[in-house]
Each structure stands twice: as C-alpha cells, then as structure tokens.
C-alpha cells in the first residue's frame, strides 16, 4: 500500500506554510466577496431597471462574465490590461479585481432573482403610499430579498473560495500556489496535494455551516 509510505513528517512541516497560504486565500476571497456583493447589488438592480440602456449594459456585463472562464478573465486583467495601460499590475490587485468582478456577475443574478421573488404587491403597496421606487426598494423590497439570498450567496462564497485557486497561475501565493512551490522543492505531490485538499475542504465546510446558521437565525426572525 503506497499511502503507508507517506512522509507524515513532511506534511507536518509543510502545514504552517500551507496554512499561511490558506490565510491569503481567505483574505482574497473575503475582499472579493464583499466587493462582489457591493458591485453585484447595483448590477442586480440595474438588471431589473425599466431603463433600457441601463438594463442592456447590465445584461452584457453579466453575460460576458458568466460566459467566459475565470482563468481567461485573470489573464485579461494581469497580462492584457497592462498592454493597454502600459503599466504592470500588482498580482494581489489583479487577483482581487478578477475575482470580485467575476463574482459580482453571479451575485447580481442572485440579487435579481431574490428581488423578483418578492410579491409584486409589495412594490405596489409602497408606491401607492407615495414612496418613490428607490424608497420602496430600500425599505420594503431589499430587506425582504436579503433573507432569501443568504443561501445562494453562501454557495457563491464557497465557489469563489475554490475558484480563487486559479490566481496561482499569475504567481500569487495563495494556498494552491504555496502547494506548488513546496512540491517543486520536495517532489511530494501526494502529501502536499492531500494537505491542500483537506485545508480547502475545512474552509468550505466551515462556510456552509456558517451559512446554515445564518439561515436558521433569519428564519426564526421571520416567524416572530
């Protein structure tokens, strides 16, 4: 049995380095999720706008980002953008930019679906009281939609955390890249990739537990 020959000592030695990489992964995921939610909220609202131009721009934005691979988007930001601007871009910035913009398209669709799932009578009630569209969105529709989008947003968070491994291709030292670097020195593919996988798993399971907890909490709130 090959796995009994695993070098457990090496795994223990690599762990601290890999965990530092995991910290970086969490950092870029968290920042990208926050930025993605912020941009996504506006794009999502633009997607349901009755203004045709705004609607069209948002639709093209979402289609482009969902219709092209994240890997290609990373290359576009890191390698193609400097050709246009004439300035090299920091890998950290490039990673955050690519991940958050990519995520914002998925988040926009989540928000759009969440908002459209709210009964049309709510908008009518708000408007009939003399509130503007924006006021009704802000005080009536979005707060209700927010509860419904927690589960899909959690899924998006998890997807983004895994997809962030792609930024290793531009040399950004997150978890996957750290793994590659250690293997380059030690040739211990089995041990290191196993460790990397376990760390990703631990992170995604934690997030899904957190989301489940949030979901329960808001359901209880709903039933007050």
């Amino acid at each position, binding site marked *: 049995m090959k796995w009994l020959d695993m070098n457990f000592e090496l795994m223990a030695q690599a762990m601290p380095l890999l965990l530092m990489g995991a910290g970086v992964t969490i950092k870029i995921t968290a920042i990208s999720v926050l930025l993605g939610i912020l941009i996504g909220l506006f794009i999502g609202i633009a997607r349901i706008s009755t203004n045709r131009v705004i609607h069209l721009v948002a639709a093209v934005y979402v289609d482009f980002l969902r219709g092209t691979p994240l890997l290609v988007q990373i290359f576009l930001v890191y390698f193609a953008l400097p050709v246009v601007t004439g300035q090299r871009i920091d890998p950290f910035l490039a990673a955050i930019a690519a991940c958050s913009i990519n995520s914002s398209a998925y988040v926009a669709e989540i928000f759009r679906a969440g908002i459209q799932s709210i*009964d049309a*009578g*709510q908008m*009518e*009630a*708000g*408007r*009939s*009281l*003399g*509130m*503007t569209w924006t*006021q009704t969105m802000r*005080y*009536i529709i979005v*707060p*209700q939609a927010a*509860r419904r989008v927690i589960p899909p947003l959690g899924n998006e968070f998890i997807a983004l955390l895994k997809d962030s491994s792609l930024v290793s291709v531009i040399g950004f030292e997150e978890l996957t890249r750290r793994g590659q670097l250690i293997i380059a020195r030690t040739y211990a593919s089995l041990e290191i990739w196993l460790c990397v996988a376990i760390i990703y798993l631990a992170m995604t399971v934690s997030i899904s537990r957190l989301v489940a907890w949030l979901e329960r909490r808001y359901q209880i709130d*709903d*039933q*007050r």
Partner: protein
Amino acid sequence: MISVRNLRKSFGRAEVLKGVNLDIAEKEVVVIIGPSGSGKSTLLRCLNYLEQPTSGEITVDGMTLGGGTDINKIRAEVGMVFQRFNLFPHMTAMDNITLAPMKVRGVSKEEAEADALRLLAKVGLADRAAAYPEQLSGGQQQRVAIARALAMKPKVMLFDEPTSALDPEMVKEVLQVMKDLAREGMTMAVVTHEMGFAREVGDRVLFVDQGVIMEEGEPEEIFSHPKEERTREFLSKIL
C-alpha cells in the same frame, strides 16, 4: 375630487377599458360592481397610476396625472387598500403604518407613532401594534392595511375588493371600519361584491361591464330597477 375623461387601457391587444368617464365628488362614496374581467379593478388602479392608462385624462384633487405632475405627490393623497392586504411582512403593524408618513411626509417618529396608535385604536387593534402581519388574522391584517393608508391623511381612499380574500366571519369587521370611514366623510371608491355594503353606504353605484360603465345610479335604483339587460343579468346571479 376625481375626474376621469375618456380613459382607455389596453394590455397588449386586449382593450380592458374602452373610454370611461367618471366624476367623484368630495365625500362621495362610489361603489364599483361588475363581473370579473369587466375592467373594474383596472379602472380603480388607473386612478393612482398603478396602471398607466393608454389614453385619457385623470385629474385628482386638481392635479392632472401624467402631465409632468410628480406622481408620488398624487399617490400620497390617494390611499389604496388591496385585496391581498400587501402588508410589509418584515415589519410590525406599527412600522407598517409609520414608514410612509416618516419617509414621504417627513413626520417625526414620535408623531408618526402617536398617529399610528390612534389609527390602530380606530380600527380596533390598539393592542396589536407590535404584532407582525403573519401573527394577525386576515381581517386584522386588512384593518392594519386601512390604518396604513389612512396614516398618510389621504383625501381619497381606493378599495380594491378589500373583503374578497377574507374568511366570511372576518368580512364584517373590515366593512364596519369602511362604514365608519364613509360616515366621517371620506371620499371613497370601492370595488366590491358586497352588495349590502353598496346599498347601505354607497352614494352611487357603477356597473362596469366589458370595459365601459354600463349603468350608474343610486344604489336603490340600480338594485331594484336596473335599466340595462346586462345589469339585470349580473344582479340576478349574485343577489
């Protein structure tokens, strides 16, 4: 108070309102009846532009809709009560009532809450201010919805089948609130199937069918001596 001239409304190719003229005087209670699909709800929803008319002119309290007038300004003067209540489920009865006065009229929180308590008492729900909509029965929800509309101190109230989604035993409590309101001199337009209410409170009854006002008159006249064949036919089915 409200004047409607040659109002037409189409959804796609279907013309739902085919030229309606209507005047509602101050303090008048107008009851709109008619078979389903006749256009009576659409007519009511055009009065505050929840439905945009295809053509025609609507004037509310001296302001003409669509003609550059701020629609929100007109809606603030026109309260609306819906068949399915449409309370805001994430807010208490109190917050449902105080939201619009605070955000639209700029009323202070204290003042809005004092007003809301007075209105809740008026609709018989003084003790349910802290309740969420789902903790209230249908009749209670509709009464909160009426209080919510009244909180804007509207000049006109529109009721779109306010008792149609209620269990029979709750219809009375909602109608009672509406009767009180009518006696206080509120201008009201009510789409309903409650003929007892129409007889007792209505100053005028409109029978709407196939997108036009087929017949109108005092309740007694319409119910006892309908002139039009279609009106007779409709009344014979529901009375």
